[in-house]
């Protein structure tokens, strides 16, 4: 039982990282209908920026987190402006291929610049003390991850629902042309979406590094894909859906590991993906939308 709860906590920690990345996927998809494959790589870049902030500049965890989020936000906007914006009216396939190209470029560009060798996040930046709740030991790191991710999600909810830019984002994702006619600056809104999504991915990168310690240039691929699965699971384009999907996926993976199938863990996410696409393509929180004939 204790073991089970322990695994559950691990799953929720991992799941909240997925959720943070999934938010960026889901927001971008909701607004420009693009699977931003490069999103997982923004996450990787965030992890490295956090790492260098801590080791070279001897910053604490929170300043590093902020720097990483800011840098990733700028990076995300740059990717959008340079690679995606010219393709806004292109076919979906062209956009998807571009996204794959951008993703490969960031991955191998990083390897070219700094080599493929992994780095280890310094230990001791996060509280190591464990806390005992109901007889279950929960590591300080897990709690910190949960606190950071939930805080960011609340901030995001606030931005999306209470601010002007949030309102613009919702309007553009609902109907880009109508929003344009209503005087909303669509380009800026899309950039803001990329900025927010990328900042969340950057934050996820730093806490991922802190939790798993090892980071490397191709680390973004698998968590990126899984986060996309999480976004689809919750219903793509739906922000609470991405959060729930991420947490659910993390828990499922942890339980599969706990059941002794840890080598199959990476496969489970994709099985979940295919099942959800077949049986409920709109996701758990989504509504079915028909193609207009």
């Amino acid at each position, binding site marked *: 039982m204790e073991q089970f709860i322990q695994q559950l906590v691990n799953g929720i920690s991992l799941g909240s990282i997925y959720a943070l990345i999934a938010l960026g996927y889901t927001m971008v998809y909701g607004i420009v*209908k693009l*699977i931003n494959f490069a999103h997982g790589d923004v996450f990787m870049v965030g992890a490295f920026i956090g790492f260098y902030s801590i080791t070279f500049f001897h910053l604490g965890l929170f300043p590093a987190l902020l720097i990483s989020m800011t840098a990733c936000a700028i990076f995300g906007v740059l990717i959008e402006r340079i*690679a995606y914006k*010219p*393709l806004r009216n*292109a*076919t*979906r*396939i*062209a*956009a*998807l*291929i*571009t996204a*794959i*190209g*951008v*993703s*490969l*470029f960031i*991955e*191998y*560009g990083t*390897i*070219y610049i700094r080599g*493929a060798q992994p780095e280890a996040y310094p230990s001791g930046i996060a509280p190591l003390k464990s806390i005992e709740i109901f007889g279950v030991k929960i590591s300080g790191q897990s709690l910190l991850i949960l606190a950071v991710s939930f805080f960011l999600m609340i901030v995001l909810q606030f931005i999306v629902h209470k601010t002007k830019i949030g309102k613009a984002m919702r309007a553009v994702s609902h109907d880009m042309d109508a929003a344009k006619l209503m005087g909303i600056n669509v380009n800026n809104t899309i950039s803001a979406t990329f900025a927010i999504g990328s900042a969340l991915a950057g934050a996820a990168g730093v806490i991922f590094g802190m939790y798993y310690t090892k980071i490397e240039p191709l680390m973004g*691929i698998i968590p990126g*894909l899984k986060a*996309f*699965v999480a976004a*689809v699971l919750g219903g793509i384009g739906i922000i609470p859906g991405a959060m729930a999907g991420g947490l659910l996926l993390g828990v499922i993976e942890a339980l599969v590991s706990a059941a002794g199938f840890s*080598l*199959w863990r*990476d*496969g489970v*996410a*994709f*099985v979940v*993906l*295919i099942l959800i*696409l*077949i049986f409920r*393509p709109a996701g758990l929180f989504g509504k079915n939308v028909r*193609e207009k*004939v």
Partner: protein
Amino acid sequence: MKSGKHLKGFWLSIVLAVIFSVVVQFLISGGTLNPFYVNTLFSICINIILAVSLHLIIGITGQFSIGHAGFLAIGAYASAIMTMKLGLPFPAAILAAGIAAAAAGVIIGIPTLRLRGDYLAIATLGFGEIMRIVFLNIEYVGGASGMTVSHLTTWPWVITCVLITIIVIANFTNSTHGRACLSIRENEIAADAMGINTTYYKVMAFIIGAFFAGVAGALHAHNFYIIQPPNFGFLKSFDILIFVVIGGLGSMSGSVIAAILLTIISTFLSNYPEVRMIIYSLVLVVMMLFRPQGLLGTKEITAFLKMGKSAKGGSKDGGKHTVA
């Protein structure tokens, strides 16, 4: 009707291909081609099979599948089991590889091909990853350390498989069945309204494409001495996708040319893998920005060659029976 003329072109291409194959065989046996070139040539041919088989799925039928390495993996492992575990001859292994991959094509195709565009892409990508993880976890085929395979891939097998792949897919494409697939790519709702059984043809394209990817897997496995699950990750799928996209979605000769060029480039850059990937990725992005239709667009190379001769150059039937 024009079929007589086309038939002549068809046999001419076959004769040329046979002469080419025999000459190459002499060069190999005579030692003129050193092992490095022979290996590059084999890689080119295997990649042509992969590119042409994916071309049928993406370029002709318009189904954006990015898990082609999954079928390659199934073919590679199925053939390796045939020769290494069951002691069967190589031709049986090639056939088994194709059949196993085609069977997987049916199993994965029927449920996922209901999905459209992005969703299908991500589902097929998931399928490719699942296959990799499955092979990683099966001890019978060596798990993570992989499986050693004896070197049985020879030039006659390679070139025969390439020719069969091209002929079968070209013949399929240039028939009412191929047009049914094209109509799905062009407008699925209209295709349905015209009486085309769209599900049937999508699955059929998937099966044929998967079959030849499996065949390529058999040649691949018996060329490289060892197969390991990481060889069949989605980077491999992307490699194949890049051939098809750069060659021109809908152009078989385009994907063949792209497979040849890119294989040569990556062979020369094999000591600098990250440079290769950077170039690949830049080419992809720049291509999508400035020439999203790829090198040849939807046309076949013969349409360009004919341009000078006929006023109707570029007509769609230009590529009939073309053996690249």
